[in-house]
């Protein structure tokens, strides 16, 4: 009877180990999915911010081109004056 109880106890311990390992594997799989999602979202967010940076840069470049067209003559005149008279 005692031997039987010992064997039953060993079985309980073995089942507990198996259950613990299953739970661990499930938790790791869930965490892995969460990790992938966090990384994917961060990348998407960064790419969206990068596209916004591109748009802002294009606007700045366009502004510079317009300013250059409008102010080039004045800049050249002032620069020539500086070189001649400084």
């Amino acid at each position, binding site marked *: *009877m*005692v031997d*039987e*109880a*010992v064997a*039953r*106890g*060993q079985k*309980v*311990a073995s*089942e*507990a*180990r198996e*259950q*613990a*390992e299953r*739970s*661990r594997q499930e*938790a*790791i799989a*869930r*965490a*892995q999915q*969460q*990790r992938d999602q*966090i*990384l994917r*979202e*961060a*990348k998407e*967010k*960064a*790419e969206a*911010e*990068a596209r916004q*940076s*591109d748009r*802002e*840069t294009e606007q*700045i*470049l366009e502004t*510079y*081109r317009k*300013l*250059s067209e409008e*102010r*080039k003559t*004045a*800049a*050249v005149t*002032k*620069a*020539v004056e*500086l*070189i*001649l008279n*400084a």
Partner: protein
Amino acid sequence: MSESLEKLQNRILSDAKLKAEETVKEAQSKAEQFLEEALRRSQKETEDMIAKAKVEAESVRRSILSSKVRVNRLRILDEKNRIVEDIIRTVEDQLSSIARTDQFENTAERFVAEAVKAVESDQPIVRIGFKDATKKNLDGISRGLPKGGKLVIDEKPIDDFGGVIATDPQGKVVFNNTFKSRLERLDNQLLTLISSTVFAE
């Protein structure tokens, strides 16, 4: 006697049953503890994974953004440089064509006077050369030289865009007053002037 044996037998059986129950109970209790501990460990493990993922995600985000910001800053800087260089080229063109303007004689006289003053010699040698300058243009200039001074007229513009170079008779003291040299000397002021004129709000 047989009654007492039966009692002993019952007692042994009862003890064995009790021990068996205790053994199983103990195993169950240990198994529960083991499971709880395993659960705690796995929870800690997954929390660490998520925390690491958040740090990694921030690093990925920063890396993508910082390289983009760097590229865009360079594009803006390149465009500004391109605009400034274009203006400087136009300035150089205008300077090298000065002989065709009514500012020429006055400018050439001033450049010569500055150069002569800088070499501090009674017998300065002054080389002068501007694109499209004629002897007639330059006639008045020799009048501004000291009596012992000598004017050498180059047919070609000196230093690409034209100007004046004065030396003492030994050639030890040299003052370069060409447009190229003036552009170099005034480089910082020139860039500031162009930038503030074109890009100021």
